[in-house]
């Protein structure tokens, strides 16, 4: 292509791409710069590694990193693991399948905070679950279920919120596999598990990777579910960032923010890569 061809293409791209690049670029730039001591809101701006070394020395930080990765990883894996069988089940239309598919995607319309409050109502000390378990005589007294230390509540809400999204991506991917190909594998002796590992998974890998990565990044940066139902003795990275900021320590908050972005980037690359390896070769 000549320069003349490029000019209109470039002109068409500028409004969209340019805006995105400017917005994202400036935010990332400011965050990175702040983490190294620039753009101080109070006091003087100067290059410094002290914020990085301070934050990295804190136990609070390394625990938050581990905790956030834990939430991100399991939210992604569990959402996809639940969505896969549903996507396969809904592959072929049957009476009621459209309604069912719509119902399963309903959580996409409910805000996370609303869901979190509903969840608290169910599991609280005088909540529905406790009443029910006592009612049928399994538990003799109410149990404390809120803010459990393993963050099962957070994971449950993450999966509830993200599974429909994974389902959306996987349904498309699974539906694009033709009946003949699945029938051919069956004819050659592949049972349900072999069909999944050798045909369905490798042929829907890009949908699965997309779901994994997007859910991982979202759950890694979770704030809402963590503050409402998360364990009280842990902080997520987002929570930590906010707590630094509310103390006016913008530089440390920026360090956490930049770490969060880096982990999101590396973690999703790693997740996408491993899932490809497992789906293509490992499950044989």
């Amino acid at each position, binding site marked *: 292509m000549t320069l003349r061809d490029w000019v209109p293409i470039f002109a068409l791209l500028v409004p969209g791409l340019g805006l995105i690049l400017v917005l994202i670029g400036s935010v990332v730039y400011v965050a990175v710069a702040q983490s190294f001591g620039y753009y101080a809101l109070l006091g003087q701006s100067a290059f410094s590694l002290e914020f990085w070394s301070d934050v990295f020395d804190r136990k609070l930080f390394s625990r938050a990193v581990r905790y956030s990765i834990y939430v991100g990883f399991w939210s992604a894996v569990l959402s996809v693991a639940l969505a896969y069988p549903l996507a396969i089940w809904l592959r072929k239309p049957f009476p009621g399948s459209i309604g069912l598919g719509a119902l399963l995607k309903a959580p996409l319309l409910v805000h996370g905070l609303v869901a979190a409050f509903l969840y608290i109502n169910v599991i609280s000390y005088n909540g529905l679950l406790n009443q029910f378990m006592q009612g049928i005589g399994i538990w003799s007294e109410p149990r404390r279920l809120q803010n459990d230390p393993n963050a099962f509540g957070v994971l449950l809400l993450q999966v509830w919120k993200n599974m429909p999204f994974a389902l959306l991506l996987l349904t498309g991917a699974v539906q694009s596999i033709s009946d003949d190909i699945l029938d051919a594998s069956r004819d*050659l*002796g592949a049972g349900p598990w072999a069909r999944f590992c050798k045909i369905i998974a490798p042929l829907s890998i890009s949908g699965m990777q997309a779901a994994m990565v997007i859910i991982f990044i979202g759950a890694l940066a979770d704030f809402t579910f963590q503050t409402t139902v998360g364990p009280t003795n842990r902080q997520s990275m987002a929570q930590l960032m906010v707590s630094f900021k509310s103390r006016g320590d913008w530089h440390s908050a920026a360090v956490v923010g930049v770490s969060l972005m880096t982990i999101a980037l590396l973690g999703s690359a790693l997740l996408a890569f491993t899932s490809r390896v497992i789906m293509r070769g490992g499950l044989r």
Partner: protein
Amino acid sequence: MAAIGIRGLSKSFDGFQALSEFSLEVNQGEFLTLLGPSGCGKTTLLKIISGFLEPSTGTITIGGEDVTHVPPERRDTALCFQSYALFPHLTVLQNLEFGLKQKRVSRDQREVRISEVAAKLELETQLEKLPNQLSGGQQQRVSLGRALVMRPSVILFDEPLSNLDAKLRDQVRVEISRIQRDYSLTAIYVTHDQSEALAMSDRIVVLNGGKIVQVDTPEDLYSKPRTPFVADFIGGANLISGRVSSQTEKGPIIIETSMGPIKTSHLVKDNVDNVELSWRPERAKIGEGPHCGTIVHRAFQGQFTDLILEQNDIIFRIRTNNDKLRVGEVINFSLSPDDVVVLEVDK
């Protein structure tokens, strides 16, 4: 013992009867063709034999064993799909290996079988390619090879040539026949193309509306169709109805038709007055003869010429080597009594 036994099979989809009262035996090493117009239930039958559909009634045996309720992954059949259904993410080699790995065939044995089949199908140089890097004919061969390496007790073909162009079709047709004979495979071949059926089969099963119309060798099916449907579907015979005017112990029977009296040496059942006759377009001898017609259309086909004639508002077809005849000419012709077949009237 029959390789495959089908007894009293029927299949309905929500009240629609796709197959009814279907019984058939396929012999060991036989090449059997299911021939019929589209929608007559051919694919449905193949899917029942390979296990993807369960019959509404009836049983299927393979090698004497009842497999009516055995799922496809545990049946010793191999299906060649019309769409080829190659696994797009696997190489040719991995496609060929797929079934053998599923059946836990040892590595050595896998290599032996695959190299033999790859050599036979001229796929040795293609083994590392992905299906979308192959031509249609090569994909067809991979799909055939994937079935052959399994050494199934029966191989099933669902219109395997319909996606190939005319020249390739002839080539692959010959290849399939040769391989079937070399391995003495029992094969069930589905097609709606009568010339494929006549060229390849040991026996042909003609289907119409989910029912067997006639089962015969290609030669008998062609020369002795039993019903107007078969006569017309295979080779486009001329059909005409008439009344039996004289039936003697010796000599041909004379049938009175709107083309005039026609002689046939085939028997008419006792007490039958009205009959349906069929005769082949290429059997008419042009020249002298009791029958005549005006040429209303002519189609030159190379080796022969197709003529459409009319007489007394009856239209019929004659195939001749004479390419000098023109539209508007009136010609005389004769029919040998042996070539005039008496049909059963369709119910």
